[in-house]
């Protein structure tokens, strides 16, 4: 915490530290629900993916989906966490319109995954470890629609019973940047693992933020929980607003009331949730319809053996093996697909050169067109070919940009375009010498000035020769020959 001064917020009474813990609900990637055989697909007709179990009809009983268990264990391993070989499902009892049974099956005292860690990659390039408290499996609730009728709420149970992983962090974060970095990293890991698609728009990853403020060095303040913030940007905004709100209250002599709040992105403020006003008493107890979940160590080991290389390991390898900068490695590993694209393009090529092309040229293009890496109009193999042409001096970097543009336009490969347009770099000393001689002859006055000490004119000669060769002269060779000739 020593270098945390940069994160402090200035109030009237001095500097404040914001303390953040995140609870992320990540929808497990599975075909069927946690305790029923109904489908989990997004966007279906209302109540069309609901079994009798999900709707809590009398006498219905839950049976657990093995893939959901496997996904939770996989995620736990991806978060360097302890896997509990015995875990227990509890009932969390409360009444709500979209909670058909009047209880949610969750895990309370004995979750499937215990303590773990996650490493944040912060915008300034630094890295920071945040503790994971636990991960447990639980059922999602249904959806209430409040805007369909003047006096009624409509209930759709399609989502009721879908498996969620609730991933709880330690209160280790100190700024909205860190919270955003946490969410990005967690989402990246979940996507690498294939356990959650991390899609916040569709609600498959949702975030509750616990926010409190304190004077540096003081004990933790009273926290407020901001529910269901559905984008990383809003999480950051909600934190800023909530921290400001709390600081103002305390500085005005008030105290913070522990409560659940909602973030309203339109108004840029948080407000208390009416439905959560009443103090809760969830009356957790072990679900008598389910037995303890017992896992074999060999089952866990099997999943561990099959884990993909995760972003941190990949990052380290990119730096070590490819000599990439921390920054470039970080950018390339953030998404599994990007890393895969890069590795394919870099196969047999100069890894640093490839990284530059992926990060500056390709990302620039994708950003402009609003596309993801998987939708890239230029394949990894095609980009690799282009890098290859630069690497073996067939074309210069500058020409390569032209080729890149032509590839986009025509869909043709880089070698084909180079041949077609005759863009092959001139490396013939005779041809380069001839071009230099011609330019020097036409500019005798400038040659004299140069020789008289006006070194800046070197660039002028380079430009003129390049122009004369249609940009195809090998730049290194041109420099070398030009220098020799000018020195006469």
């Amino acid at each position, binding site marked *: 915490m020593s270098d945390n001064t940069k994160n402090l917020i200035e109030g009237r009474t001095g500097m404040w530290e914001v303390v953040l813990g995140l609870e992320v609900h990540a929808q497990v990637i599975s075909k069927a629900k946690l305790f029923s055989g109904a489908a989990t697909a997004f966007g279906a007709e209302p109540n069309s993916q609901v079994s009798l179990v999900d*709707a809590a009809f*009398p006498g219905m009983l839950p049976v657990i989906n093995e893939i959901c268990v496997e996904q939770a264990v996989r995620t736990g391993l991806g978060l360097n966490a302890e896997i509990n070989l015995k875990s227990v499902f509890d009932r969390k*009892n409360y009444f709500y319109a979209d909670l058909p049974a009047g209880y949610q099956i969750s895990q309370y005292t004995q979750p499937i995954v215990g303590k773990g860690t996650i490493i944040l990659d912060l915008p300034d390039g630094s890295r920071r470890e945040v503790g994971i408290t636990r991960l447990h499996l639980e059922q999602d609730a249904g959806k209430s629609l409040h805007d369909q009728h003047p006096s009624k*709420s409509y209930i759709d149970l399609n989502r009721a019973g879908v498996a969620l992983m609730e991933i709880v962090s330690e209160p280790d974060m100190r700024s909205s940047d860190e919270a955003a970095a946490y969410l990005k990293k967690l989402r990246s890991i979940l996507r690498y693992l294939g356990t959650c698609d991390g899609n916040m728009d569709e609600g498959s990853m949702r975030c509750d933020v616990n926010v409190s403020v304190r004077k540096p060095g003081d004990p933790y303040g009273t926290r407020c929980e901001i529910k269901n913030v559905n984008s990383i940007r809003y999480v950051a905004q909600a934190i800023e607003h909530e921290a400001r709100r709390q600081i103002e209250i305390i500085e005005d002599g008030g105290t913070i009331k522990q409560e659940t709040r909602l973030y309203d992105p339109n108004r840029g403020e948080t407000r208390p949730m009416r439905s959560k006003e009443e103090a809760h*008493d969830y009356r957790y107890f072990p679900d008598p319809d389910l037995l303890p979940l017992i896992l074999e160590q060999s089952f866990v080991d099997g999943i561990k053996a099959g884990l993909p290389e995760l972003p941190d390991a990949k990052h380290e390898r990119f730096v070590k093996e490819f000599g990439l900068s921390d920054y470039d490695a970080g950018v390339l590993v953030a998404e599994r697909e990007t890393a895969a694209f890069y590795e394919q393009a870099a196969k047999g090529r100069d890894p640093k050169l490839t990284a530059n092309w992926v990060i500056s040229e390709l990302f620039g293009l994708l950003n402009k067109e609003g596309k993801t890496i998987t939708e890239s109009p230029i394949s990894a193999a095609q980009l690799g070919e282009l890098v290859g042409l630069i690497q073996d001096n067939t074309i210069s970097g500058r020409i390569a940009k032209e080729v890149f543009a032509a590839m986009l336009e025509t869909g043709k490969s880089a070698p084909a375009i180079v041949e077609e347009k005759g863009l092959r770099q001139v490396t013939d000393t005779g041809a380069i010498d001839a071009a230099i001689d011609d330019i020097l002859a036409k500019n005798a006055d400038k040659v004299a000035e140069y020789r008289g000490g006006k070194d800046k004119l070197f660039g002028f000669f380079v430009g003129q020769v390049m122009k004369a060769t249609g940009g195809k002269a090998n730049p290194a060779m041109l420099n070398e020959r030009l220098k020799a000739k000018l020195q006469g």
Partner: protein
Amino acid sequence: MSELTHLTMAAALEGLKAKKFSSRELTDAYLAAMEKHRDLNAYITETPDKARAMADAADQRRAKSEANGLMDGLPIGIKDLFCTDGVLTTAGSHILDGFKPTYESTVTTNLWRHGAVMLGKLNLDEFAMGSSNETSYHGPVINPWKRKNSDVKLVPGGSSGGSAAAVAARLAMAATGTDTGGSIRQPCAFTGTTGIKPTYGRCSRWGIVAFASSLDQAGPMARSVEDCAIMLSAMAGHDPKDSTSVDVAVPDFRKALTGDIRGLKVGIPKEYRLDGLSPEIAKLWDEGVAWLKAAGAEIKEISLPHTKYALPTYYIIAPAEASSNLARYDGVRFGLRVPGKTLDEMYELTREAGFGKEVKRRVMIGTYVLSAGYYDAYYLKAQRLRALIARDFTEAFKDIDVVLTPSTPSAAFGAGEQSDDPIAMYLNDVFTVTVNLAGLPGISVPAGLDSQGLPLGLQLIGRAFDEETLFRVGQVVEKSANFTAVPAGY
């Protein structure tokens, strides 16, 4: 016709096989009896059309020699706690007003697969909470038995009171029951019928309205040990839809009825000899001991030291689970809805109107013992006691094969006699509730009449999944007792 309704299932199966009568004739005889004795209020819903159609189908199978089911053509009643596809299912409660499931419970599905014929849905205490069948929204059930020279209406016991009364009064050959603390065995004892609560996990709970999930178990109620054996073979079996259903083979329980109990070790728990145990019950128990000894069994006194804590343990665990299980009755997706201005008001008004007094009492107790600050003192304490009660049995079964006890501390009592005092009512289950807590099988067999002419039962408790021993010993008790009494007028 009335002769048909006096046959046991075993005898009726012989008659059907020999084409002495058809399933339709048998079924019509029962439908007529049901109509005649509606005053007992045993059935909430009669399903005569369905019964006749199923009977006709059974007769057609018989004609084609395809009647392979264990109960092919036998008409039975179903406790109205089992969900039946398209047939009103009430759990004895107003809150399930008009509820017609779109699904069929696993146990009833098994019974229909074995060719059984459904006569209707039997009355019960609301959500199976009660020991007298007086808590049903559909009114109390009357016990067909009466005290000598008395017209006082007696309760049939509960919660499977409709099932017991129907079987005793010959309004069904047999019936399904469920037993959470004694709800099969106590009404069987009160009506001179036989019923077994199988080992927890033996019968699927899928499609049975839940009361207390860790204790509920379905079982047969019939007029002989053999009939119970037949019916349990048809009902039981592993169900992947119930995570607590156990994957063990279901034997043909009839094969266990060898009559040979020589060398079997029978435990007599000293703690069951309660202070103030009625002398008649004590005498019957002694007779039972004598019968088994005479049949070659070895009698041993055993100790089940935590017995006296079983009822209070039960009255924490069962309401706790029930308070959660009954949260789904909220007026949103099925059953009764009392409109309210807000969601919470709708919940509160619906549940106020929909639940009866005893159900509310238990939901409140259950809510309380699970609530913050009380969980450890009550719920967790009760679970530790439950472990000790189960351990008592585990220890005892190291030395013995079966336990013999009375089924109930008294014979059937009069309507209204105990309904004002919940604890007095709860004490009806004092001999049966330990079995549920330990998850063991227990059978109640009618063993004699008291001085007022009312039936009394003896209970046998076995090891987990050893229902066969219970049937074998139970039949020895049955034969020794030679219980042939039938309530007057039936």
